[in-house]
């Protein structure tokens, strides 16, 4: 079984990891780097629970091989909060009640973060389109969309 040593930036930290060729990015994050915030749902790109950012855009980490991330920048849900301060998105999710069981939340947050980085003032339609690849089986999306909208407002009022 072939192994490969890759250099990948994860949440701003450079990691040098030796991985077998058939390891997915999701497995590397959870099993090798103990970043278990990213969840394993369907392993087929349907549910979005494993969504992380790769070079600034959302991907399903179950559908990317770890070796493919050599030289890439990855952001997981663990990279959102800084110095014990939550990201505005996380704050807004808490306030809006956008979290119930929490399994979809890391993926929801990363998809939402990608949206807000690209489009700080999204319409509800933009929010729903950005989250179409993330399934939630608890809250029914309304509060999640509320959370993203509120986060956009929080960021806008902070930067005024």
């Amino acid at each position: 079984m072939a192994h490969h040593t890759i250099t990948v930036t994860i949440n701003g930290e450079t990691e040098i990891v030796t991985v077998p060729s058939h390891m997915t990015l999701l497995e590397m994050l959870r099993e090798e780097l103990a970043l278990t915030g990213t969840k394993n749902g369907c392993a087929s790109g349907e549910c979005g629970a494993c969504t992380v950012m790769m070079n600034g855009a959302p991907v399903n980490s179950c559908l990317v091989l770890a070796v493919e991330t050599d030289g890439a920048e990855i952001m997981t849900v663990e990279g959102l909060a800084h110095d014990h301060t939550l990201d505005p998105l996380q704050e807004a999710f808490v306030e809006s009640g956008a979290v119930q069981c929490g399994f979809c939340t890391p993926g929801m947050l990363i998809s939402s973060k990608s949206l807000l980085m690209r489009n700080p003032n999204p319409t509800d339609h933009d929010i729903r389109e950005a989250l179409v690849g993330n399934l939630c089986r608890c809250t029914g999306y309304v509060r999640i969309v509320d959370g993203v909208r509120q986060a956009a407002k929080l960021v806008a009022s902070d930067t005024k």
Partner: protein
Amino acid sequence: MKPAPFEYHAPATVEQALELLATHGYDAKILAGGQSLIPTMNFRLAQPAILIDMNNIPALRYIEPTPAGGVRIGAMTRYQTAERSPLIAERAPLVAEALPHIAHPQIRTRGTMGGAIAHADPAAELPAVCVALGARFKLRRGTQERWIAAEDFFVGLFTTLLEPDELLLEIELPPLPARSAWAFTEVARRHGDYALVGVAAGITLDDAGNCADVRLSFLSVGDRAVLAHNAIAALKGHPPTAETIAHAAAIAAADDIAPNADIHASVDYRRHLAKTLAQRALTQAAERASAG
């Protein structure tokens, strides 16, 4: 829920990739975006012995104008790049309209234009769009290049004219005729799901307002993307009225397609969708052509 072990190669050039393919042929799989391949590997439906990863070949990522007025798209161009390309929006509005229907943002970040073509999923948007546009594909094997028309390239379920040691390098979209317009529509149970039926339509008007040319193709109605020859012949030369379009759409649904039934839709329902969607797409294309 994880892939079986395989040997991994990441060539930096097309030539290196072709050499690997020449050596390993049938045992090797090409990894483009991986958004169809990796799920099948996760479930061990595919267990390739060797994977040739094309993601380190920047020379295959481009969207460029052709002198004739068309667009050349490198096989490793990602959906997301194409979706945000002003050149595609201007010169291939049908592609721009169809792209957001492909899966969801996570998949479009990674999935590639060439991967979709080589994979030849009959439910995929891009093969049907390429067939409608009369695109052609550049293939290479060793030092030999050949061009294949989209309609000839897809020969069956997940099957194309690509040889085991041959690579798809480029999608070339022809220039759009004057007074032509296009439309894409599909029905899926949820946005991003595989469409039950999808339609790409194009109409070119002549000076008298008749259809000088008609293009109509379907996805999810059989084992490959289908060009609706009978419907096209029925509408060509006629003005695109509600009656002529309804007639052509009915012919398409009855004579041009051979849909299968599955748990999501019966044959009759697929034919019904094909007719209704063809009518809508042709009507929209005709309105856009008249307005433009």
